[in-house]
């Protein structure tokens, strides 16, 4: 319990910075929504957009969503929130495993009268709480910013769905980074591989946006597992939800086993 408290305290300062960034991102982004009602003269913009090839839409920055509606506009902002969430969780994951080794304070913590698994467990839990906090705050800010717009539309369901997506995908990358950090020999490499995998997923997401035949590419672009249009329609893709959860659990279990066996090396 003491370890958990300490870890949370260590995480707090960086957490506040991220929350501040989140606040600016969501409020600055959402205030500009004006809606483009009535420009199409009767035809819905979605009908027009559906005629345009995907690659062109991607260039125009609205692959698959209609940014003239509030829901579509919000999903653009929510995607950036997702990016922030994942970068933050990579940072948290790497810190949970390797911070003490990099700071050369591990001799202190790992001589405490509790097992290595327990120590790692507490550290992982502390980071995970930060992810929960990040998700909850993103939902609160989204709700407030939509309310501030004063439109009558009810966005609560979409906000909650996006909250779930941010949480699931952040946890996935959190698990990935912890996995990389426990399996790589050098302490710093965990963060490196975590970031690289995120960068790769990001670029695969753009490729997925630009090309129509996305079925195979979709599997390796986690950022596009839950597409904006499905979320706006109120659906979470069950298959990918299960894939994410299973992957997270497997990676975590494997990492814990691995961490127990690892020797602690002075970096």
């Amino acid at each position: 319990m003491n370890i958990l408290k300490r870890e949370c305290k260590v995480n707090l300062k960086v957490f506040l910075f991220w929350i501040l960034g989140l606040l600016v991102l969501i409020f600055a982004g959402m205030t500009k929504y004006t809606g483009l009602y009535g420009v199409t003269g009767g035809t819905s913009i979605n009908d027009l957009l559906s005629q345009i090839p995907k690659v062109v839409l991607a260039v125009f920055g609205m692959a698959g969503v209609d940014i003239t509606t509030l829901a579509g506009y919000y999903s653009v902002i929510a995607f950036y929130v997702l990016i922030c969430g994942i970068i933050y969780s990579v940072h948290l994951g790497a810190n949970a495993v390797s911070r003490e080794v990099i700071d050369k304070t591990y001799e202190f913590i790992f001589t405490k009268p509790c097992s290595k698994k327990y120590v790692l467990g507490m550290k992982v839990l502390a980071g995970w709480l930060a992810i929960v906090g990040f998700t909850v705050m993103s939902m609160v800010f989204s709700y407030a910013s939509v309310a501030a717009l004063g439109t009558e539309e009810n966005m609560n369901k979409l906000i909650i769905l996006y909250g779930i997506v941010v949480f699931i995908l952040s946890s996935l990358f959190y698990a990935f980074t912890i996995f990389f950090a426990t399996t790589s020999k050098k302490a710093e490499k965990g963060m490196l591989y975590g970031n690289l995998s995120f960068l790769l997923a990001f670029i695969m997401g753009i490729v997925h946006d630009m090309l129509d035949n996305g079925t195979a590419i979709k599997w390796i672009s986690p950022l596009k597992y839950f597409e904006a249009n499905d979320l706006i329609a109120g659906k979470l893709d069950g298959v990918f939800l299960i894939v994410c959860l299973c992957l997270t659990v497997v990676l975590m279990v494997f990492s814990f086993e691995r961490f127990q066996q690892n020797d602690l090396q002075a970096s």
Partner: protein
Amino acid sequence: MNIFTYEVKSQARSFLVWNVALLLTVIIFMGGVYPIYAESAQDILEMMKGFPEGFLEAFGFNIACLFSYGGFYSFSYVYIALVASIMAVIVALSIFAREKKMKCLDFIFTKPISRPALFGIKTLASLSIVILSNIIYSIINLVVYYLNGQDSEMAGRFVLASSGLLFTQLVFLAIGVFLSTFMKKIRSVSGIATSVGFIAFILTALANLLEEEAMYFITPFKYFDPLTVMEEGHYEVKYIIAAIFVISLCMGSSYVRFIKSDVHAV
């Protein structure tokens, strides 16, 4: 000279990896996707004639221009710049913060070389890495330009447009140097670099969304926008000034800090 060769050598592998990543990005976008894009562009232009007038105005940009090669490069540039900016921050951090990270500042500072000279050599090393990488990038970019069958009249402008990446990287190099001298503790180079790169990316996206003129000044990806060059043949002077301001502020304050900072015991 010893320090220079050491710094450059230590960067060789990461230089190779990031250069390949950079070139792959530009080849995928400009070589792979552009032909598909250009093909569908003709149909779209036809189709858009039938659209209601207000629809095109709502997007607030010149459609014909966006369908040009420069327009597509300008779109791809955001992603290319993302990779390039991460690379630049990594170069700056690993050269300027290595001793701090490994807690051996006392080692390098006891060498028979003054701190200003050390700062100069490190700057030179990072500059030469970035410049070399940009020469390769510009050549490949031009090759892809010709392979796409673009006319040579605009080639001069395109070279200028692709050199914008160098200036963008210089801005991020300065930001990286600033971070490495002012941050108290540096645990991971890649983590900081990714954060800086994506913050710049999100700022760009926000600036595009908000269309606030003032916001462009804090979005480094906007300083050297390729589209302006392709259309007008030069960069916008106010953003060049902004870039010079950022670079000199970061480098100047880092220099002072580097010269005067105390070395802490481990």
